[in-house]
């Protein structure tokens, strides 16, 4: 059954000393939605992700996930409720293999305790086998099938981004937060990523909230956009409407730009 308000954020504020990074953000994300969070650099987008995923405590406001208040919960608890994320500045476990990175994602839901892991009791062995199979599937899904034994730190930049997605998927999320998934990718990789993200939503039924600077990517992929500037929402709605919004144009291009005036000297 779909949930109309899988994620509800009410009046979220986050202050770092004198800096207000997020200033009264409210949004509702229904199950199965694909929403983009955009805005100029320093608008507070990643801070919103950090707040949602429990990496940073909000100064004020409430976050509800499936109607549970998760405000200020620890990151690992929020993850186990079904909210997984990737990082803007890739945070893979560099020394571990690609496969191990994904396997770590399964650990939070492992039901065998550490004694049965040490003694290799049947329950643990079966769980380990299941994890290995699922991890291989996930690597195939994101297109890293042949690279499972490669050290994560040695993968190409675009591949590292994909591995982060696979690792997040291993935690069996319902809501996926992707922080600039296309950053550092070439146009071809970006196109493949768009296909992947759409598949995650359509085939796995995930709800996705993503931050991205590649406007072409965002405008084509997302159904709804929320535009953030200086921690405040300045526009929201479907891509076509956001694109025309004068406030958004202003936020992106600086103060009121008079295009005619700029052309004048050359005329």
């Amino acid at each position, binding site marked *: 059954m779909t949930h109309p308000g899988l994620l509800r954020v009410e009046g979220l504020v986050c202050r770092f000393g004198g800096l207000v990074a997020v200033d009264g953000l409210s949004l509702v994300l229904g199950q199965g939605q694909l929403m983009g969070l955009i805005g100029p650099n320093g608008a507070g987008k990643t801070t919103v992700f950090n707040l949602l995923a429990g990496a940073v405590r909000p100064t004020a406001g409430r976050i509800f996930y499936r109607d549970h208040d998760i405000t200020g919960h*620890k990151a690992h608890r929020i993850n186990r409720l079904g909210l997984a994320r990737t990082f803007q500045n890739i945070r893979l476990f560099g020394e571990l293999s690609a496969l191990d990175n994904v396997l770590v994602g399964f650990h939070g839901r492992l039901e065998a305790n550490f004694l049965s892991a040490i003694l290799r009791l049947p329950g643990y062995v079966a769980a380990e086998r299941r994890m290995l199979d699922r991890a291989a599937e996930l690597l195939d899904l994101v297109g890293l099938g042949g690279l499972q034994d490669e050290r994560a730190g040695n993968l190409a930049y675009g591949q590292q981004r994909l591995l982060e997605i696979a690792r997040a998927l291993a935690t069996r999320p319902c809501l996926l937060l992707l922080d600039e998934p296309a950053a550092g990718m070439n146009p071809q990789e970006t196109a493949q990523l768009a296909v992947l993200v759409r598949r995650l939503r359509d085939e796995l039924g995930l709800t996705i909230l993503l931050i991205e600077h590649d406007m072409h990517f965002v405008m084509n992929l997302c159904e709804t956009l929320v535009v953030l500037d200086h921690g405040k929402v300045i526009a929201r709605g479907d891509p076509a409407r956001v694109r025309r919004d004068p406030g958004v144009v202003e936020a992106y291009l600086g103060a009121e730009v008079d295009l005619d005036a700029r052309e004048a000297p050359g005329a």
Partner: protein
Amino acid sequence: MSRISRWFDPGPLPAQSESRGRDSGLTILGCLGLAALLWLIQAQGGGYVVHMTTLAGLFAVLAVSYNLINGVTGQFSLEPNAFVACGAYVTALLTLSPAEKEMTFILEPLIWPFAVISLSLPVALVIAGLVTTLMAFVMGFPVFRVRGDYLAIVTLGFGEVIRVIANNAQSVTNGPLGLKGIPHLTNIWWAWGLAAVTLFVVMRLVNSSYGRALKAIREDEVAAEAMGINAFWHKMLAFTVSAFFEGVAGGLLGHLITTISPSLFTFFLTFNLLIIIVVGGLGSTTGAVLAAVLFTFGGEWLRVVEEPLDLFGLDIPGIPGMRMVVFSLILMACMIFARQGILGKHEFSWRWLIALARRRGGRA
């Protein structure tokens, strides 16, 4: 990659699943071979060699368990001397006979439960291990609130606190006088038997889902938390498991050297263990064993440089302390040419050895 590690790089290894049966067989054979070697040392070697081999076994236990928290989990902590002291004192207090204790505690009598009981070594060791584990558990709550350098400082402080307590709790530890007349019960089999158990448990732990989680915490704690791993409890797991084995090894150490006093458990003990695990390769369990053995015997082999020497007609008188100079030079060379330690973060494996032998064989 340094020249040395390139020399030992056999290229990509075959999949583990292909060679599991063969590798287990080789491991069993290897263990039997080592057991035979120990038996030979026990039968043929002099008392001194046997003593050193036993000590090497205990240091292997200490290094492997210390490496679990420092190398595998990446929590730079400096407290093993506290755990070893705790294990040594608890075991000795439980195994000494009441008569012996009455003779030892001349300034203040020993407090009640310890004064009247006398247990066998295995029971005492298990109790000592559990007491040490409990101590680590209680200590873990404040200690794991901090990370990095701060963690090192806090654990260092705890180590000192335990030593100071040992120095001053006259009615429990007999203060600076220490405990003497501890029965010499530790032999080569106790030490290496414990080493085998420790290796088995730690290797199984490290190669399980829990071990992956520990390594994930070492690599990036924030990401590990975001992937649903409760970093605090996993650090606690590594910490208590390592404390258990350090406590038991401490108990055996007391029964090997038969006299213990607080001065035995200073920061120097921790420092030596730190050298061992860094030289062995932080994070490498097999490297820790290798380095522990090298370290224990190396100190003895280096005695050669302190003896009068006749070098190409040049008479060099024996210089006491020269050993430590040479030792420092070796350490420096180690850090310059093999910064990752002997094995880096890798583990010894038969797959690796056989692949290496094939490559070297193919080239020759």
